[in-house]
């Protein structure tokens, strides 16, 4: 055995920890468990939230501009019922000067993609089957940056021209058609057209797989009796949580009705927010409990080590260095526990991601650990360890060396 290599404070802190085996093991277990719970929960919740948001936004534009809704205000002269607003019967309308509106949207900061869409209700007919669908006239190059259709295609590519159409797999099944077959589409106004199916998509949402029929803008305009017009403008923004901001500015700038996904899904957002709040609550409790654990074990250790502290003082150790030794013990326990805790959380993630799967067998969440979450948990544990050691360390520093030596 060679002479010890560590600096004095480290050497003594480590030996003290090693000497108090059972205590050290217990306190480490506590920190490990606490950190694992925090990391695991945070990881799980952030992943689940990301997955939910991903699913929601997988088939939805971040921001949508629509014509101003016409509304009749009933009994205008009755102030009591002024808030009762009744929309008129649905009638497709175009956005006035939509090209200018597209330019306006494109000029906004934080806007990534803009796609005008001609959409409206129609029926898809084949043989005796008749299905209600939503006609979506798009410019494929623009629209694929709103909804990532390329990733959803099961047959063919996301590309529309002439009288070609791309439909969802559910509609294809309902009508008994596939790529190469023809479908008759009739719009509400009575105009109709025979479309050639060139692609199938599966967007991960049965309802949309059953309803969406993509064609060119031109074809949709003529079927829906909307010559040269578009019914809405879809927009993608850089950060999904900027959507509300961007939408409010666009509303002010355009005078159109502009909605972000955050208003259309406000209940979901509120639920996610509540989840985050309860997660933070759990985290705070765990941190406080871990801190109390470290603190109480070290307080006991200071009393037990009274004699050693006295000896060290008699040999020329200042009270500040004694304090350092105990702070270091807190930090070491916190840090080691954090490493073990992150490891345990990783193990838990592996285990639960293999146990819990979605209906179609895919894991409910990914077993990867976010380095940011792991690092911040480790850092918090280190800081909490040192802070928790503060009271015991000050007690140790104040200890009268003579008291210890006389005993």
């Amino acid at each position: 055995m060679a002479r010890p290599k560590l600096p004095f404070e480290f050497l003594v802190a480590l030996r003290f920890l090693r000497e108090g085996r059972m205590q050290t093991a217990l306190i480490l277990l506590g920190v490990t468990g606490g950190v694992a719970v925090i990391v695991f929960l945070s990881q799980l919740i952030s992943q689940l939230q990301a997955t939910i948001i991903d699913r929601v936004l997988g088939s939805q534009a971040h921001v949508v501009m629509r014509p101003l809704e016409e509304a009749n205000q009933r009994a205008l002269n009755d102030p009591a019922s002024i808030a009762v607003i009744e929309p008129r019967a649905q009638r497709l309308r175009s956005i006035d000067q939509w090209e200018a509106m597209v330019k306006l949207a494109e000029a906004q900061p934080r806007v990534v993609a803009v796609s005008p869409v001609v959409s409206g209700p129609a029926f898809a007919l084949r043989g005796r089957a008749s299905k209600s669908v939503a006609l979506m006239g798009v410019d494929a190059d623009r629209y694929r940056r709103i909804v990532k259709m390329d990733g959803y295609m099961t047959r063919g590519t996301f590309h529309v021209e002439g009288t070609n159409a791309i439909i969802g797999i559910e509609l294809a099944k309902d009508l008994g058609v596939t790529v190469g077959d023809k479908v008759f589409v009739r719009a509400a106004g009575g105009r109709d057209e025979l479309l050639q199916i060139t692609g199938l998509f599966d967007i991960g949402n049965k309802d949309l797989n059953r309803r969406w029929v993509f064609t060119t803008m031109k074809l949709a305009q003529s079927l829906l009796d909307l010559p040269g017009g578009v019914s809405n403008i879809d927009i993608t923004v850089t950060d999904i949580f900027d959507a509300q901001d961007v939408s409010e500015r666009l509303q002010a700038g355009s005078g159109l009705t502009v909605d972000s996904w955050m208003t259309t899904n406000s209940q979901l957002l509120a639920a996610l927010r509540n989840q985050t709040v309860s997660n933070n609550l759990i985290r705070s409790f765990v941190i406080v409990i871990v801190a109390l654990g470290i603190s109480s074990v070290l307080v006991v250790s200071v009393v037990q080590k009274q004699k050693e502290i006295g000896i060290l003082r008699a040999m020329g150790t200042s009270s500040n260095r004694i304090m350092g030794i105990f702070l270091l013990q807190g930090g070491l326990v916190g840090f080691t526990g954090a490493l073990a805790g992150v490891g345990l959380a990783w193990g838990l993630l592996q285990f639960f991601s293999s146990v819990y799967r979605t209906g179609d067998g895919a894991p409910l969440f990914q077993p990867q650990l976010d380095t940011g979450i792991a690092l911040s948990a480790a850092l918090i544990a280190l800081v909490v360890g040192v802070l928790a050691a503060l009271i015991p360390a000050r007690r140790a520093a104040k200890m009268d060396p003579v008291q210890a030596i006389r005993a």
Partner: protein
Amino acid sequence: MTAIVSLRGLRKSYGVGTPVETEVLHGIDIELAEGEFCALIGPSGSGKSTLLNLIGLLERPTSGDLAIAGSETAGLKEQALTVLRGRHIGFVFQFHHLLPAFTALENVMMPSIIEQGVATADAEAISRDLLLRVGLKGHEHKKANQLSGGQQQRVAIARALSRSPRLILADEPTGNLDTHTADDIFALLREFNRERGSACLIVTHDPRLAARCDRRIELVDGRVAHVSSA
């Protein structure tokens, strides 16, 4: 001859400002010369340990002057006292007071580790040599509590000597050892005192050992009652 320890009118009270305030030392005047080998004797409760702790800068006197190696200690801050203690004073206590988590060698090196911040090769060489001198070759890597009482006291002496202090304070270093072992330990202290010139102040209840010192200072009820030279 210069004095390593110089006390003038040293008083110590406990419980100052409380109803149970008691003065334990009532004005002590002592000088200890460099290299002197001196016994501190007296009945139990006469204040021997208290005096030793004051000289060792572990406690502060209530009044009076105390100089160590020529430095007056009255105005010094705790930090400065710690430095002075580390540099000049080695302690040997009655109950060995080794660090149980460390080996014999590490215990001997500890004063140097405290001063230098880490264990140096020099310190290791000096400590190994000291353990050899106190007859503990082969026991270097035993934990302190794996050694017998006499062996532990030898380690404590080696530790007190490890930085060649100018003053060694020993409070009943042979107090709980059998006569034979006590003689060995005492002989070791005497040997190092002659060899290195470290002054020793030894509290002892054993008249045989006291008789073998250069000088005997007797405390009775917190006062110097008698001083005799060999």
